[in-house]
């Protein structure tokens, strides 16, 4: 081994030493990075938290024109039984200047315009908006004054997004499963 000249120059072998330094540094950074991940990831939702996925709800409990608030994944869930007037107002504003443009059609299940299922936290800073308030008759956030319309779309105030629609399915005409 070592027939090439540079192998005979003893300590004068910068290339090989550099290689060892770089390789060792990369290995150390990789190891620290790899070891750090479990310590970061432990703060993400635990398995039992993720498992609390879905709730079923009987819609017949909600009177026309009312909403019921249930707790889902630690957050309030709004289930609103909209009147024809409220639906019409929402559809009429589909082409208004919306901050987070969405048509009313996109915010409920096909053919179920009277049922609105929304996550009840203001998209500004997470307060719970009050039912029926504000300039658009949908919801009003008392904390910093965000107004939502009867489709739960943001219309005025500091919130950047519409009230979120969770994943849900109709199990029957009067039963939904959220999550």
């Amino acid at each position, binding site marked *: 081994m070592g027939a090439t000249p540079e192998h005979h120059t003893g300590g004068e072998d910068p290339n090989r030493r550099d290689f060892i330094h770089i390789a060792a540094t990369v290995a150390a950074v990789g190891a620290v990075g790899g070891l750090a991940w479990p310590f*970061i990831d432990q*703060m*993400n*939702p*635990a398995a039992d*938290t993720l498992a609390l996925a879905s709730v079923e709800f009987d819609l017949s409990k909600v009177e026309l024109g009312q909403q019921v*608030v249930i*707790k889902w*994944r*630690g*957050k*309030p869930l709004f289930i609103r039984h909209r009147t024809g007037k409220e639906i019409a107002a929402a559809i009429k504003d589909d082409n208004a200047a919306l901050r987070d443009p969405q048509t009313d059609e996109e915010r409920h299940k096909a053919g179920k315009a009277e049922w609105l299922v929304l996550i*009840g*936290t203001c998209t*500004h*800073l*997470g*307060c*719970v908006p009050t039912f029926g308030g504000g300039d658009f008759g949908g919801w009003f*956030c*008392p*904390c*910093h*004054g965000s107004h939502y319309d009867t489709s739960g779309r943001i219309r005025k*105030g*500091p*919130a*950047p997004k519409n009230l979120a629609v969770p994943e849900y399915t109709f199990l029957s005409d009067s039963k939904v499963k959220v999550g």
Partner: protein
Amino acid sequence: MSGHSNYEPKSGFEKWLDVRLPIIRFGHDTIVDFPTPKNLNYWYTFGGILALCLGIQIVTGIILAMHYVAHVKFAFDSVEHIMRDVNYGWLIRYVHANGASMFFLAVYVHMFRGLYYGSYKAPREVLWLLGCVIYLLMIITAFMGYVLPWGQMSFHGAVVITNLIGAIPVIGQSITTWLWGGFAVDNPTLNRFFSLHYLLPFMIAGVVALHIWALHVPGNNNPTGVDVKSKEDTVPFHPYYTVKDGFAISVFLLMFAAFVFFNPNALGDAVNYVPANPLVTPAHIVPEWYLLPFYAILRAVPDKLMGVIFMGGAIAMLFLLPWLDTSKVRSMRYRPTARLYFFIFVVVTLVLGYCGGQLPDNKIIPGLTTFQVIDADLNSVVWLSRMATAYYFAYFLIILPVLGLTETPLPQPESISEPVLSHPANAPAGAAASPEKRG
């Protein structure tokens, strides 16, 4: 810590220890024989008061942690258990809760003093930065501590503040979920806040040690802002300042005790005596008084992300201050124009604090309905917040940089001793001179 040490170990044990771990020498050089400017006024005793505050918070906090349960089902009741059943639990909790307010009161005096006398200027920039780090850690610690009793204000305060992080584009929501440990503020959040609330004060203590180290290398600034020129300008820390600080601490403790014993809930919010309920938001969410100015800045901006940026920027200004103030003169005693703007700044921060405690649509002058200018109602808290926010940032970004270049400062004295010794009443006849005539 720096320079020559006058410590002479006396007992056999001290001599033995001094060559192995010179910790007594270190203490002697730091708090006994440390040469300190002889003209420090009472604004300078708040450093000592702050050290005491940190000590009180750590001791009472360790005790409270022995009785508190960090679980959403038990947290609120465990605090009531401390108040009613634990021997002297009421006292220890009220000292801890009011201690946080006293801590912030003292740190604000300490910071405004630093602003006024230019304590952030060379060669004390690192000292100032470490102080800013301490202040930031204090805010985080106080916020997490406020969440622990799991009342309505605790819970919704935590919701609002953690939601601020969601304003970060793209990754904000993932980070928020990561911080929560779930889909909302819940038990995992409470648990980790408790863990961190216990940890951070010790980190504060560590940075305080660095802060004091960084103080003792260049030595104290002083009200004239003039460097120490000779031994004449200084006195040993002990007994001169230990006694002065001791007196100030006694007066401070009287006020502290007045709160704890006579009106312990004056600085808290009654809504926090309602157990947390994720389904109902209190009509008016407010932080503790010491964070109101930042809350007002957050609300002054009608956009979520920009509001968060402005609020963060308000604290970032403090970190940048040593490089924003261009004046060569340290103390505002010799900067009449800067002094005027400084006092306006003090008033503006108080106005912001007032605004943060009000509903945004409230009127400032109740009798007057509106004061309409174009499409802005200037008689509303939100517009007052906006104007105050504008001044807050202008002070750091415009006034201090420009003023340092344009202002003509008053003549400074040659030394710390000069204004005292040359005063006709203090000096021997014939030695009088008027400092303002020196150039």
